[in-house]
């Protein structure tokens, strides 16, 4: 009990410290004394603008998106009882990406800021509806397979958009978006996704008890009075709302949802319900750190956030598989 509280407390402390640091770090380094001074003196100041209009929304967005990914990863690993599960598994990320890519393809994204995120959210919802309709009632494996099929479909759609791109610029824009980034995002994007992330997050957060019971398998969980359909609906649509909205404004960011629950699980005694809050917090922390890293690591063009998390995440994935293989009899 104390340990769970301690873990959460430590992560929150780290988040606050690093988030404050992230306001100062970037292409232009801002000395804290200058920021503090100009924040309290009237009149427009460059440093105040950079902090409140560029870096603060970016940090908030990193925390929101990271928390959504981490929480969803924790829930989905609990639902599937598979430590390799993550939000991308249900086709949510691919669906969101396809939705956003379609708006870029037709040039709507340039005319309305909200078009790509909104279409992304619709894509995520459509993908998860399809996944759920296909995989419903067939248990966990069917759900995973349905997710893989829907991801494949969305990937085919994205490939088609790239194939038929009207000009190289559109193709380039789609590719850039697919790489995932928090650069040049503002309060508009934060406000846009906040309600969806909150509602989706709430749906995911109430699954704790059911996930605990489900660690005994579906038969025992049902015998303990758990409504498995409700659990599937909450986890699939909670993920669609929270991760779908997040992916819609940031592009595809992988591996946070996979790694965050894993790092936390041994610290809180492996019980699925206890993993959820730490997974959300550590997901937020990881993405915040990753975003700062992309701003600080400079060799030529800016390193994209999605590329960076994949580069860091893939070796972790390898390590997981090797460990699982050792654990298997």
């Amino acid at each position, binding site marked *: *009990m104390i340990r769970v509280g301690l873990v959460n407390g430590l992560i929150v402390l780290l988040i606050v410290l690093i988030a404050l640091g992230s306001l100062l770090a970037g292409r232009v380094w801002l000395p804290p004394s200058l920021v503090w001074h100009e924040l309290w003196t009237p009149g427009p100041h460059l440093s105040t603008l950079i902090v409140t209009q560029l870096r603060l929304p970016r940090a908030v967005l990193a925390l929101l998106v990271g928390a959504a990914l981490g929480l969803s990863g924790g829930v989905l690993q609990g639902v599937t*009882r598979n430590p390799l599960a993550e939000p991308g598994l249900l086709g949510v990320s691919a669906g969101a990406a396809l939705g956003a890519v379609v708006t870029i393809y037709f040039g709507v994204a340039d005319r309305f800021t909200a078009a790509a995120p909104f279409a992304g959210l619709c894509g995520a919802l459509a993908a998860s509806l399809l996944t759920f309709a296909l995989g419903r009632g067939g248990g966990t494996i069917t759900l995973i397979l349905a997710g893989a099929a829907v991801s494949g479909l969305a990937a085919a759609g994205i490939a088609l958009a790239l194939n038929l791109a009207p000009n190289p610029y559109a193709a380039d824009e789609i590719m850039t978006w697919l790489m995932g980034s928090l650069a040049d995002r503002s309060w508009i994007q934060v406000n846009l996704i906040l309600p969806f992330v909150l509602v989706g997050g709430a749906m995911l957060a*109430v699954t*704790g*008890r059911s996930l*605990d*019971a489900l*660690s*005994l*398998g579906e*038969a*025992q969980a*049902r*015998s*303990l*009075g*758990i*409504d498995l359909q409700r659990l599937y609906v909450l986890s699939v649509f909670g993920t669609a709302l929270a991760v779908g909205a997040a992916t819609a404004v940031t592009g595809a960011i992988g591996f946070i949802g996979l790694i965050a629950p894993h790092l936390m*699980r041994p610290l809180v*005694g*492996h*019980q*699925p319900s206890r993993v959820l809050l730490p997974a959300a917090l550590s997901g937020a922390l990881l993405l915040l750190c990753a975003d700062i890293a992309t701003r600080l690591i400079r060799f030529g063009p800016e390193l994209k956030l999605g590329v960076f998390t994949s580069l860091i995440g893939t070796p972790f994935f390898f390590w997981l598989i090797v460990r699982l293989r050792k654990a298997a009899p």
Partner: protein
Amino acid sequence: MTTLTAQSVTVRRGARAILDHIRLTAAVGEFVAVIGPNGAGKSTLLAVLAGLLEPTEGRVDLDGEDLYRIPSKRLASRRAYLPQNPRCEWPISVERLVALGLTPILPAIGRLPAAHARRIEEALRLCDLSDRKLQAVTTLSGGELERAMLARALVGQPEILIVDEPVAGLDPRHALDAMRRLAAYAASGRLVIAAIHDLTLAARYASRIIALASGRAMGDGPTGTTLTAALVKETFGVEACISGEAERRYVDYR
């Protein structure tokens, strides 16, 4: 007094009847052993009686109320069910595993109320696991895991306990212990229904025998008068030799 009644329960998969017009009435205080060859429909019958598999025809009542209309939470607080070879997917501690048995009466979020901690201790003691309570369940031996699962089922003190093959894969001492625990639980005023392959154990500890073959009831009644060589011949197709009385009874095959 709690009674579980099945009326002409039939379960069909396609054209095949897995259970064929089974009827039975069982009350608290009984320890019912369901016996029968592989594929006889024992597991299906237990799932139907546990309220987890609605029969194609017929009905099951708990105290006169349709079992399949009782809200799952309420039913969960009155009966516990253990499937064959129960497993736990995460390396949680034994104590946490046992606590999962209290799921139906736990608040939706928040920590374990203090009153429940005592019930967990008690269930662990009853199943001889007090010294293992902080160990990860994935590191337990087969027999220990079986006991931990039984503690998980007993912790909620359900009126009805339904267990699918509780002694499969246990060594003789642990098998005897498990049967004694189930018999004692039934004697304390609960209904225990278990599928059991070992006829000697069933003959010694169960108060009642239900024999199934190909989904049909071949016999149903008090162990002493029901479990006869003729029934074994009819149910399993083997010649049996039954000797001894009560806890010294033996069932052997020719």
